């Protein structure tokens, strides 16, 4: 009990130094938590992808289109349940800095292949019937305060000109992992206008999304699809949605690796911050430790004294950091565009990692001062001049 009191008193001896150390640890814990959250949010997209969907794209690059005529051919491949397709429309809605995916799709099949976008049967029926209608995600509806019946005008870039759509449905997300920022309209509507504006581009589709009957057959079905178009002018590359997502993320992998690495560098920095404080404190107390040893205190006492102080500071710093991390992550999640990270939550694993790092830091920072205090002979401790 008394030792605890002495630990407390020792910690508060240099109030400013202790305070700054605690703040340093708190800031580091916050930075660690933020980085880890971004990393986990990034991978959440992969986790959420469906296992029974394949993506068929142009073999050379995702940016080259495929012929519309492939649709029926793919549908006939053994193992394929349903085929839909999409084309990247892009365009600008109001503010060109506000980005959300805008896709030209097949209204007959898109919501069957993507059951995670939930629309009512009435919405779906109206959407399929009206050629200039669109369906938007609930997050976009909320962001722009849009309702069913409202008009949305896109300024085309890939498909030049003004394009007007009427909202006929707002899809709900099946769960938190689903992107709620999509906008979908008729591929036909675009295609018809291309017949007049740019006939070369008629009948072009961005990519196909293939729902397969058995997820375990994904490799074979992919191979069959790609074999079908071998030696044609537009060869295909088919892979699972997950692999596709991973490939997409892989192009950012160096950033992710850097973030991962940084988050652990930060732990190293906290160790140095606290280690430095502990070394300074212990150095100043060399004489006091010699006095305590003279009185008969020995290794376990000095260890608990120094370790206790180190843990006390790292606990306060880690606690403060975690305490602030919650509202910060929440605030960050609100500011960050929804379609970047559908889920931006403080994961349990992040909390556990941050907390255990704080404990680890407390222990590691104490090792050197403890060793020093124990090894210093009493007579040398008294002869020590700071």
């Amino acid at each position, binding site marked *: 009990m008394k030792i605890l009191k*002495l630990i407390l*008193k020792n910690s508060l001896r240099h109030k400013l130094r202790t305070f700054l150390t605690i703040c340093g640890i708190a800031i580091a814990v916050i930075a660690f938590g933020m980085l880890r959250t971004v990393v986990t949010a990034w991978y959440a997209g992969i986790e959420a992808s469906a296992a029974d969907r394949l993506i068929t794209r142009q073999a050379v690059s995702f940016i080259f289109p495929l012929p519309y005529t492939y649709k029926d051919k793919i549908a006939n491949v053994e193992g394929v349940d349903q085929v839909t397709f999409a084309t990247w429309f892009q365009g600008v809605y109001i503010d060109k800095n506000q980005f959300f995916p805008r896709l030209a799709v097949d209204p007959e099949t898109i919501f069957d292949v993507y059951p995670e976008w939930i629309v009512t049967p009435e919405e779906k029926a109206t959407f399929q019937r009206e050629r200039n209608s669109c369906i938007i995600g609930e997050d976009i509806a909320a962001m722009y305060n849009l309702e069913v019946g409202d008009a949305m005008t896109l300024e085309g870039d890939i498909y030049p000109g003004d394009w007007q759509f009427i909202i006929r449905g707002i899809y709900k997300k099946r769960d938190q992992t689903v992107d709620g920022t999509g906008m979908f309209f008729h591929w036909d509507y675009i295609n018809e206008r291309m017949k007049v504006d740019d006939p070369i581009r008629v009948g072009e589709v961005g990519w196909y999304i293939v729902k397969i009957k058995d997820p375990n057959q994904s490799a074979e079905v992919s191979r069959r699809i790609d074999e079908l178009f071998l030696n044609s002018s537009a060869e295909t590359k088919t892979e699972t949605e997950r692999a596709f997502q991973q490939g997409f993320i892989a192009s950012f992998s160096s950033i992710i690796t850097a973030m991962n690495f940084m988050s652990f560098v930060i732990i190293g920095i906290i160790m140095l911050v606290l280690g430095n404080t502990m070394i300074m404190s212990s150095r100043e107390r060399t004489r006091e430790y010699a*006095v305590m040893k*003279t*009185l008969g205190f*020995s290794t376990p006492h000095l260890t608990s004294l120094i370790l206790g102080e180190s843990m006390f500071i790292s606990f306060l710093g880690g606690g403060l950091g975690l305490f602030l991390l919650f509202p910060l992550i929440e605030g960050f999640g609100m500011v960050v565009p929804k379609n970047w990270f559908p889920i931006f939550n403080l994961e349990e694993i992040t909390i556990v990692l941050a907390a255990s790092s704080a404990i680890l830091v407390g222990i590691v920072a104490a090792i050197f001062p403890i060793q020093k205090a124990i090894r210093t002979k009493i007579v040398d401790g008294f002869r020590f001049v700071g």
Partner: protein
Amino acid sequence: MPPLIQIQDVSKSYMRDSFEVPVLNNINLDIEEGEFMALMGPSGSGKTTLLNLIAGIDKPSSGKIKVSDTDISQLSETALAKWRANNIGFVFQFYNLIPVLTAYENVELPLLLTPLSKKERKKQAETALEIVGLADRMKHYPKQLSGGQEQRAAIARAIVTDPLVIIGDEPTGDLDKNSAEEILTLMERLNKEFKKTLLIVTHDPHAAERANITKHIDKGDLV
């Protein structure tokens, strides 16, 4: 009855760089129980070194130190720490109180190593503080005390465990004349009234007069 402290053929040398520097040469000295001994000698003659050996905070290079039949030169570090806690009260020239603890807490500190209850510790620490005349300064921190008061608190800390021997390394060395006088009177009282064995190092012949016996040391030899 054999002497309380028996120092037999004790030598001590320190390594400085790779040279062995002899500090004490074949010291033989007996200290009887209840004695108040003063140790004098020029600076660097090895007084502190000898005290440290007797107090068990340093070990002789050769020879034996027996304190009430325990050969402390044979004890392990841990055993020695325990032995010090039970048998030695050390008073330093520069008081060496723990600055974040009050006078009372400083005096209580050595008792934390004993199995005494909180209540018993309180009683014992208060008694020690009363003996040194600091009962009204218990809640004060070292920096709120004068040098003489600090040294009295340090003496209370040294006697609170009721040790066999009280050892003082120039306990009045940093004090003005009046405070030094107080401390010496207190030590004399510990010796006469409480029958404590005392061993102090001093440079002050006046202080040495208070002891029953004075020994001189020069360049590591008793003279």
